[in-house]
């Protein structure tokens, strides 16, 4: 048994050693309590964050489609496209053209993503409660909304860690710092049609913003991996 254990330890050491040799920089993982946790390279963390963002975007698109099919009559689709500018995230000064985006710094990219993530925490909670109120809301929609809400939290944590490590900035991983006074979501119960329009508006805005997050993170990844080819052309 002892020889087996020794062999196992050797194998583990070899594998971990390969990681070290490849030049990956493990993130120092220490909680406030000082306990060690599994370390992961920055590159891998960014990959995971991007995966999160991609998934969230895809699910948000599915939610939007589900809601659209169930509740929104076709003529109203046009209405929503018109209201695309009234998403609450317009208050966040995020560049909207490629050339502009390519010119902003990594720090600005990450901070934009963090702002976006944090701004959507409360609206998603509101969305969960309001979707529950519909009689025939499909279960897939409800579960997806809940799932997205949870995933957004972990995305926030990942981005916070990235900021801390890539930019060496300390930042609070709490969404309470976000200004909630702009939120129009008080405890009123609107009428059905009004509620439908509002919820659809929320979902489309969410879809847009998750796409933004995904794009920003991918641009960031490109910059991290290969500085030369990712420069603005």
């Amino acid at each position, binding site marked *: 048994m002892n020889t087996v254990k020794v062999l196992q330890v050797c194998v583990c050491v070899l594998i971990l050693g390969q990681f070290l040799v490849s030049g990956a920089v493990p993130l120092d993982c220490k909680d406030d309590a000082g306990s060690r946790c599994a370390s992961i390279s920055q590159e891998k963390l960014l990959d995971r964050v991007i995966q999160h963002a*991609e998934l969230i*975007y*895809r699910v948000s*698109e599915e939610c939007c489609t589900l809601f659209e099919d169930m509740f929104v009559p076709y003529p109203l689709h*046009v209405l929503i*496209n*018109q*209201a*695309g*500018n*009234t998403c609450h995230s*317009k208050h966040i000064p*995020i560049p*909207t*053209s*490629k*050339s502009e985006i*390519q010119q902003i710094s990594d720090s600005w990219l990450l901070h934009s993503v963090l702002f976006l993530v944090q701004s959507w925490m409360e609206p998603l909670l509101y969305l969960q409660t309001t979707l529950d109120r519909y009689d025939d809301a499909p279960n897939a929609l409800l579960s997806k909304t809940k799932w997205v809400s949870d995933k957004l939290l972990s995305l926030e944590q990942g981005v916070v860690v990235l900021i801390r490590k890539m930019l060496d900035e300390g930042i609070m991983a709490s969404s309470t710092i976000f200004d909630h006074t702009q939120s129009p979501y008080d405890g009123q119960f609107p009428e059905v049609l009004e509620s439908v329009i509002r919820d659809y508006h929320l979902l489309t805005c969410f879809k*847009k*913003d998750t*796409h*933004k997050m*995904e*794009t920003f993170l*991918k*641009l960031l*990844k*490109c910059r991290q991996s290969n500085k030369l*080819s*990712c420069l603005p052309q």
Partner: protein
Amino acid sequence: MLPSLSASDANKGPHLTGCRSSEQVTFRCWWSSGTFQNLSEPGALRIFYQTKALSSDWYECPDYTQTVKNECYFNKTFTRIWTSYCIQLRSVPQNTTYDEACFTVENIVYPDPPVGLNWTLLNVSRSGLHFDVLVRWTPPPSADVKTGWMSLVYQLQYRVKNNTYWEMQELESGTQQSIYGLHTDKEYEVRVRCKMSAFNNFGEFSDSVFLQVAQIPSKESTFPMALVLSFILIGVVILLIFIVISQQQRLMVIFLPPIPAPKIKGIDPELLKNGKLDQLDSLLSSHDMYKPDFYHEDPWVEFIQLDIDDPADKKNSDTQHLLGLSHSGSSHNLNLKNDDDSGRASCYDPEIPDPEDLASLLPNHSEQGEHQHSLVSRSSSANPDFQQESEVVETPIQTQPSWVNMDFYAQVSDFTPAGEVMLSPGQLNTSPEKKKKEEENEKKIQFQLVCDGAYTSETTARQFSADVPSSPGPEQEYQAFPTQGVEGNLWNGDYLVSVNDSQTPYLLLEPPPAPVLPPISDYTVAEPPSKSSFLAAYGLSAQPR
């Protein structure tokens, strides 16, 4: 590139035919003047756009494409992603808006088709009939995939050339995909298109690429295979034949087992045909089937007493009981089971009757002929004569308490006035312990005998009634059972030899001298008994007449 025009466009007035972006950096819009021919000149219709995020003003199209008719081009400075645009088609002189459309740019992205499609052969199957290919392509040059600005997914389609139906593959995020299971000697056409991931707008298809793999004739490789297989098969068949021939006997037993002839275990059918009575006795008595436990467990048997205090009654009732002359009408059946069948079922599972009831049925208690007690219930529809007589036949047999000493075969030697049958012993050659067993067997077989006799003794009964009128007196009315009839009826099996052969051992005429009842076997053969012997056998005093 123009979007597809719907059929209804021709009847409409001026309208926007579509807006598209190919790389998410710029976009274009097209319109049509429709049926309004006067507006078809360039400049008659104009495009105005509004981006509410920046301002609520309407601006005119920044660039009307020179080379393409009715196209408005928004370059990268005028394009904002994640921003909704509203486009209006207006006729300025008349100041009318013919059409309006709102969208966000990422929702109108239709990527350019992939380029550089090529294929490589992966492998060909053994049979040479199928092959696999790997198809590769590059993303459209306009889409900025490298920086991550756009993430594309691709869809590959292929078909046999000139076929109408395209096979579709799954969406692929990489730039290559394999196709498996294509047929050689068929020409295939392959094409690819792409879209932004999690969006629904597929771009145009790429140029098709044709691929074909010639079939390699590989018949010679299959030939030895077929030969080998055939050889193996022949070998196996020969082996099977050998096995069958060598093990013929055993196989016959396994596959076609002999059908067992009906027989009793331990008894040789030949013995039954030609054997001695005592041998048969010992065999049958030792048989498990005939366990007359029932008899041991019947306490009421002991309670039945013969009471001969009343001579007058005795005189009349006994003969009457025996012969059933007194048609008292009430055949007092001790119905243990109240079912209407002829008593077949009840034969084998009789209940123990109330001793008092039975006692009350004794001749001394009854003034009329209501003594008919039997263990078997009878349907009243049966012939009363037959019933009574058969009951009479059975009753004495059953009520005899000392059946313990019975041999398997016995013969009736006398009748008591009470109507009981006195049996003479068979040839005894059994040991005491075996006797006990035999007794048990006898009891069982007696009961069965009785039951069988219940409905098979019709002949017997007839013979009874036939003989009765000719009897001179009550004493002499105890008829002998005709041996032929009894044997034939009491045991329906074929195991008993024909009467003529074994008649001799059955016809034992001497009465049992001892007061103790000698062992009486189940098979009874009636004999013309004499009255004195009858009584003496049962230890009864003679009736005072």
